């Protein structure tokens, strides 16, 4: 079993839709949870991070962490064609620099 599971998609939605991206994990030691966005031929770009459980909102993006279920989510409201990219979840134990990534979900937002 992989430490971090993420459905690779692809996921295609119409412009304006709410997008839900998810990851599950098995290591209860993970404390920091990140979402990265990666455009084609580019490096991952940090979108949001949360520490432990709870929600965090930044504009159209909301990250949720449910440690009891070992489940994290990223919601994108009013999705735009410019949101089309691969979204990677990543997580790490406290003060540990070995990030564990999900496989990434490829998202396409159609105009």
């Amino acid at each position, binding site marked *: 079993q992989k430490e971090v599971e993420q459905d690779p998609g692809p996921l295609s939605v119409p412009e304006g839709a709410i997008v839900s991206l998810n990851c599950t994990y098995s290591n209860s030691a993970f404390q920091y949870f*990140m979402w990265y966005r990666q455009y084609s031929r580019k*490096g*991952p770009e940090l979108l949001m*991070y949360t520490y432990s459980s709870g929600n965090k909102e930044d504009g159209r993006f909301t990250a949720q962490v449910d440690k009891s279920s070992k489940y994290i989510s990223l919601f994108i409201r009013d999705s735009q064609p410019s949101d089309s990219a691969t979204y*990677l979840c*990543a997580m790490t134990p406290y*003060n540990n*620099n070995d990030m*564990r*990534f999900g496989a990434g979900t490829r998202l396409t937002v159609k105009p």
Partner: protein
Amino acid sequence: EAGVTQFPSHSVIEKGQTVTLRCDPISGHDNLYWYRRVMGKEIKFLLHFVKESKQDESGMPNNRFLAERTGGTYSTLKVQPAELEDSGVYFCASSPETGLNTEAFFGQGTRLTVV
């Protein structure tokens, strides 16, 4: 401010040859990380430098891989001799003194193809 830069962007070499990848972190970032993504797999950690010292190299696959960071500035990752399974995208990332992965900035990656 310049971001993390990697050279070359793409390299094609024959099995058995040597390749050296370079990473220039963001100026002032003491922490430098190497990651790689092989075809069909997730991005995986290779190693972590704090300044010129290797903090954690638990992800290095074998002794054909050698990473250096002379003077605590840029870093190189040498693969010698390269094998077919080394093909993939190699990412470098850097972060400030805190060392938290939450602040890691990635380069665009070097796509390595071993034929």
